[in-house]
């Protein structure tokens, strides 16, 4: 039972971390896309390019 419980927390943590990772990438890409579409390119660190 305890094993399962520990595993449960671990898997929740994993899923949260993975979820955040995916979403961060998603919004990072969104920023580049939306700013780029308007003719406002960004550098990799999201500072204005050019």
């Amino acid at each position, binding site marked *: 039972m305890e094993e399962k419980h520990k595993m449960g927390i671990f898997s*929740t943590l994993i899923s*949260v971390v993975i979820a*955040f990772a*995916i979403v*961060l990438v998603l919004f990072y890409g969104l920023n580049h896309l*939306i*700013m780029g579409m308007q003719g*406002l390119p960004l550098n990799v660190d999201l500072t*204005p390019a050019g």
Partner: protein
Amino acid sequence: MMHSKFAKLFPMSLLLMLLFLGITAPVQATDPGTGSVADRIAPVGQVQLTGEPPLETESEVAAVEESVEPRAAPTPSRSDYPDIGVSSRAIVWVLAQLHLFFGALVLAVPLFVLIIELVGLFTGDERYDDMAHEFMKISLTGFSITAILGGSLALVLFLLYPDFMAYMMRVFGAQWLVYAGLFFFESFFLYTYYYGWNAFRYGNRKWVHLSLGLMLNASGLTIMVLANSWATFMMAPSGVNEVGAVVGNIWEVMKGPLWNPINLHRFIANIAFGGAVVGAYAAFKFLSSSDPEKRAHYDWMGYTSNFIAILAFLPLPFAGYWLMAEIYAYSQQMGITAMGGILAWLFIVQAVLIGTILLAGNFYLWAGMSRTDGSERYKWLVKFIALVLVVTFLIWVTPHSLILSASEISQLGGSHHHILGPLGIMPAKNIAVNLMLIVTFLSFQLYRRSDKVATVRWAPAGNALMVAIYVVAIANIIFLGVYYGYFTNTVYKVGSSVAQVASTLVVIISGIVIDTLMFRNAKILPSHWGRIPDRAQYALFALPIAFTWLMGLMGYVRSSVKTHWHVYTVMKDNSPDNFIPTIAYAGNMITIVTVLFLLCVLFMFWVANLSGTRQVKPAAEGGAA
């Protein structure tokens, strides 16, 4: 039902609707550019040299010259404006604003009524159909009130602004007739849709009924876009030259830079407004009933109305932003007059009103959570949402471009407050408004979830994803606003607001998608319609009052932003009222029209109820004769 042969009527009606919209396009003003030259001038194509006797075509010459000479806009002097002893502008203001209130209402109601009727059809639940029917019933009188106000408005405009109206008639030509003709169609579809409700209830006839509703909406929408073109022409004229002579066809006159932004903005705003007004009806009936079944019914009706109002309200700031952007693009001067000049304070009042709307809408959702036991799990979030709403509202209300006297500047220590100043500019306000919309959607989402328990296996992952989306979106909006708003140049600052909006939309869309998928075959917890504190119903009154007042305020902006012009840059306003009134004066006018609207709506609801009552025949106890 889907395959009945009369279901073909539905797409056919769609085609008819497109036809209606197409009618407005080819109506041409006097455009002499068609047909071959020879055909056109055959009767008069003769060469006349000096010294020769004049030709007999004198009168035809005069006629042709008359019809093709392009006339500039009139330039009335002050004495040309009729004076009936009362401010002409005030009279037109009251009638026009009331007409717009009711116009918005009667355009909006059939729209969501049709959708609710469709929902009823697809779910098989007749209660939706009955509610749709009831919404139509309570707004029916509104159509004739709209017409009365519109007719009075037209008469008053012709009486008090004859030169302006003569010009508008000339510019829009036959489009006025199209507008008038559409009312025949709208009335036909209104009466058949409403009175035929029970006659066309099931099977193929239901599709006939839905088609009638669709055509009602089509004619209403066309009426609105035609009328919008007059207002947008006055703000940003197109199809005329510098002195106002018509040089384009009717399509060019109508399709100015502001036409579509106004069409979209008014379309969405009408829906929000309509939902709010019928919500007040539901709230009133809820409070007046003691029968638990009736209370349950009106509680559900109120919830639906609030749902419609808030749902339509969420995209509205974006439509408004587009409109302002087009105004700035058309004339920076007009844009600055609106938001950086004399009318700037008005947008602070707008912030107060929108704050009221969002707070009321959210409050109603939180109060509604008491309908379900399953809402207990989410109650802890409410105070955080409330905190965010209050803080963002205060940021939004913070003014920036203050018009200060020299002594005030020295007192303040500069042209802006050194702490609050940075909060008053657009980057901070964009953060504020996007966060307000996100937490409002969160209230929504929590409410929708509170009577369900997910049974899909991936629910924990789905929730993790949802939480991540909220957190990252909020962080992104703040990052975009702070970094690009304060540390980069103007172009990036303005562009970042689009990314903020996109982030908000990601939250809303993903929230809807994830919830739809995650709560498939969910376990439904009991919910008790009618179990909501009475005070929550007042939120359903706050909504339409704030909406109505806001509409009145925006009407003041729309008119004032033209400064002293009837038609901006083309026809000057020389009337005694050609100044922009103070905001207190506008406040009084707006309150007057709001109160009048309130009274008319009360009448409208009362008449609807009246038609359902029947006086009991008195017992004949020596009371004869």
